[in-house]
């Protein structure tokens, strides 16, 4: 499974890692829904740390779509909202 951390690049993760990431993603989503910036920051950092420790960086010249995309380090709820509402994306 391939995941992307926005602004950082892609990682390849073993299938078993998904469960752990999904659990952390639940916290992240709940923070987004509640507009709780503090909880969001904590959940995002936990998610990113888990992804980095479980995954292995893809080579720079790899061109593969990701199964999951994580907001980058320091992202805000507002930025995630923009991602989810399609507002911030540059068309390919």
């Amino acid at each position: 499974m391939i995941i992307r951390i926005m602004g950082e690049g892609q990682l390849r993760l073993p299938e078993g890692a998904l469960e752990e990431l999904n659990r952390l993603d639940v916290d992240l989503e709940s923070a987004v829904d509640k507009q709780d910036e503090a909880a969001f920051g904590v959940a995002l950092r936990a998610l990113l740390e888990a992804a980095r420790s479980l995954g292995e960086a893809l080579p720079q010249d790899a061109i593969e779509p990701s199964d999951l995309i994580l907001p980058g380090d320091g992202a805000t709820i507002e930025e995630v909202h923009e991602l989810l509402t399609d507002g911030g994306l540059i068309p390919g």
Partner: protein
Amino acid sequence: MGVMRRVSTIFRAKANKALDKMEDPRETLDYSYQTQLELLQKVRRGVADVATSRKRVELQMNQVQQQTDKLDRQARDALAAGREDLAREALTRKSGVQGQVNDLRAQYESLQGEEEKLTAASQRLQAKVDAFRVKKETIKATYTAAEATTRINEVFTGISEEMGDVGLAIQRAEDKTEQMKARAGAIDELMASGALSDALGGPPPDDIQAELDRMGAGHGVDAELAKMKDELSGGGEAPRQIAGGGPVSDAVPGNANTSFPVQQPHTGEGQ
């Protein structure tokens, strides 16, 4: 559905929409390649812009630091001259300016971080664009339009995702650079008009120096006056020299001429 999957789904949907627009999927590859080259240029400009902005903040940091040093020096001079009030004023302003230095340093570090991220993004994109160019030609040479669809779909979605990511990074860096330009411009104006300390709640910056200069000049005049007074009242050699001028020495040859009258009685005696 979690945040991670939703973001990924949106990226894919975007890529699919763009793919659907093309009649021959192979055209998509050429079109995408052009877009990639444009984005590559844009990200490189972005790196240069952030670097320029960072250098400007660096320059300002130095200027404001100089201002801090100057105020520190003035405080010392004022204290040495026994003007605690002036020293206090200088130190108050110094702490205000120091706040600006700290603020600028935080901005500098934030720009530095942005520059590093964008440089890395530019390198990643470069590597992917190079790889894409090779893949594109292979796909065009190997597959018919119908066969190529699946392969193209994957490559296109992969590169689109990267481009979306890089595009956002550029946008974020641009926003930060713009904010920074506005702030830097404001500080430049303040420094140029000498009103930096006005903004910090004090009078124009040079009044402390003006006061110190006045005091310095005052000391000089006092010292010179004292010296002059001493010279005048001491009855030293100088006044005597002035008194012993030309008229006295004129009398000396006159004295020498008195030998004639002395001789005259002598001749009178002889008659």
